[in-house]
């Protein structure tokens, strides 16, 4: 660790992994509810568990992004963090606010929570992924602004690299587009249109800048390839991302009341969206092949390569699978979407955060890399989680294809619930894969506690 203040990243990474574990536990509950409908009912109905599952995902990824920024930015800027104290204070504020929100979801009925937290003053709750109570949303804005202030000041007083610029742009974009979560008109068509300005422009826009910057940072460190080369690639990839992804938002506007031309604009530009992900894969492998050093942290290299491949498969291939309007007409809102969502989030964002943690945590703990034993266990966790996710995706895709067939294409379409009963076998298989994923995650956590001969920094 080159700069003392990078140490503030440690609690962020630990919190991220803790919340990740929570997310997966609730994922297992959800998967079980798909096949045993009354599991935990009425104590934790499906919608509550799902809210916890998705909100925890968002929150822990944000913890990961912030931790990554606190780790990367001082090193990139070649200066100490503007205010480490602020970073620590924000950590506790964000963690407590996040925990209270989850407790709120689980402890009181959602309608009561809405009433208690001032949803009648400004109704923002109850929309997918934006279920957080008003104080939490405001808290996110405050924490994000203070965090951005801290990071931006650090960059301004130090060296300004392309990686910092792309990272900052991504983080600022994240904060700015979140503001659309406060816009909730009574007109559902308008509501849905601008809801995507948060959700799509996050995950298929500015988050990809953060992803690119994080991956580039780790690749520079573990391969020793010239910064110039990596930063050029970074620019090419993020350019491709945004020129396809911004208009690509249109693939969400097909069936929610927007004009029909979005079916063309959305299809054409989202057909190009796999290209940047493909470039990312080529980039990761190319850099690792051209490496000028053998970094002792093999696990981090594996995660970096995994990010390239899995984000291309999950976001690129599985996204393209159902993005063209004529296909999407039949697959919209089915398990196909769920399949894509799972692999895309895992392949792109979960894996890049784990890449960063894998690279940075040993250094934060005072060594260049973990012991061989610990790394072997971590690689096991990589394969367990990744293979499990591939199977989750395949089973959900199979379930989705069957669902589309039975419920939408067939001559005598079956009602939703009848079709669901027909495909429960795939839900069982998915649940099994989910358990394997959980085992992989437990291995991952265990790898932090494995001792053995350590490689000195």
């Amino acid at each position: 660790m080159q700069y003392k203040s990078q140490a503030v990243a440690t609690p962020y990474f630990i919190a991220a992994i803790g919340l990740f574990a929570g997310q997966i536990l609730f994922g297992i509950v959800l998967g079980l509810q798909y096949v045993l409908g009354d599991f935990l009912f009425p104590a934790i109905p499906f919608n509550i568990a799902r809210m916890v599952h998705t909100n925890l995902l968002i929150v822990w990824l944000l913890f990961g992004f912030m931790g990554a920024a606190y780790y990367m930015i001082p090193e990139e800027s070649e200066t100490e963090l503007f205010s480490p104290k602020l970073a620590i204070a924000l950590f506790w504020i964000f963690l407590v606010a996040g925990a209270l929100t989850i407790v709120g979801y689980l402890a009181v009925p959602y309608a009561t929570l809405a009433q208690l937290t001032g949803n009648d003053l400004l109704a923002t709750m109850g929309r997918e992924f934006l279920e957080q109570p008003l104080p939490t949303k405001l808290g996110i804005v405050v924490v994000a602004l203070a965090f951005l202030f801290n990071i931006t000041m650090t960059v301004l007083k130090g060296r300004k690299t392309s990686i910092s610029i792309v990272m900052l742009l991504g983080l600022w974009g994240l904060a700015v587009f979140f503001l659309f979560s406060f816009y909730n008109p009574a007109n559902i068509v308008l509501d849905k249109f601008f809801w995507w300005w948060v959700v799509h422009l996050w995950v298929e826009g500015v988050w990809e800048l953060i992803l690119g910057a994080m991956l580039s940072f780790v690749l520079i460190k573990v391969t020793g390839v010239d910064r110039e080369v990596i930063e050029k690639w970074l620019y090419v990839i993020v350019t491709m991302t945004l020129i396809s992804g911004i208009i690509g938002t249109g693939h969400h506007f097909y069936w929610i009341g927007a004009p029909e031309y979005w079916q063309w604009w959305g299809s054409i530009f989202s057909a190009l969206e796999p290209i940047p992900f493909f470039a990312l894969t080529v980039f990761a492998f190319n850099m690792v092949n051209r490496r000028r050093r053998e970094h002792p942290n093999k696990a981090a290299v594996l995660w970096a390569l995994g990010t390239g491949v899995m984000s291309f498969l999950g976001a690129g291939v599985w996204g393209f699978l159902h993005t063209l309007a004529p296909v999407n007409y039949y697959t919209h809102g089915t398990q196909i979407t769920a399949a894509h969502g799972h692999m895309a989030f895992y392949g792109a964002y979960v894996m890049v955060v784990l890449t960063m943690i894998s690279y940075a945590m040993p250094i934060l703990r005072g060594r260049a890399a973990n012991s061989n034993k610990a790394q072997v266990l971590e690689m096991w966790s990589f394969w367990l989680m990744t293979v499990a996710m591939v199977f989750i995706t395949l089973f959900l895709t199979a379930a989705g294809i069957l669902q589309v067939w039975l419920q939408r294409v067939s001559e005598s379409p079956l009602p939703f619930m009848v079709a669901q009963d027909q495909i429960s076998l795939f839900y069982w298989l998915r649940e099994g894969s989910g358990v394997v994923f959980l085992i992989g995650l437990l291995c991952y956590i265990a790898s932090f506690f494995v001792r053995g001969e350590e490689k000195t920094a």
Partner: protein
Amino acid sequence: MSTASPASPASGPVNAPQPAFPTEDSGASRRRLPGDLAVWFFILAELLAFAVFFLSYAFARARDVALFNASQLTLDLNAGAINTLLLVTSSWFVVRAIQAVKRDDKAGGVRWLAAAMLGGFGFLVVKVFEYAAKFDAGITLSTNTFYMFYISLTFFHFMHVILGLVILGVLLANTWRGAYGRDAYHVLESGGAYWHMVDLLWIILFPLVYVMR
């Protein structure tokens, strides 16, 4: 006959600020990609986006030829043709500007670039009149599939012309400042390549949307 002689003043590799992009067939360093490699990647991306757009139009037309032919008749063929002439000529002006700068003829570079921008502005003016007539007639993106494509394609291209003009403006200012010359025309070539791409796209767009039936 059409190979540039190494002795010709500007086209030889001697003056190129950047070494050639090496390929197996590069036969010494004769073969050279003008401009910055980054710009060529961008051009490829743009060409790809337009290709998907053009083909979407072509195959959508094949499914409803009567509608497309009927709607196409309402377009202003003359405006389209004039715009082709303007863009082609403007592109040629840019070539002349680069040739001038390669001779260290700064004033010539400025003049030709200004003329090229004038051509681009002319294109925009013609197009604005054309749009005004269409919008007055109550035509929007949602009128029918043909007009959806007509407005989408031409407007997408229209914005590229605007971007190209911004780029030409920057190049003009830099040429004026004397930033380019015999040994530094790399950026100028990059911007020029982009402007030629805008031209190339219109060369396909014009017959496709305005004339072919």
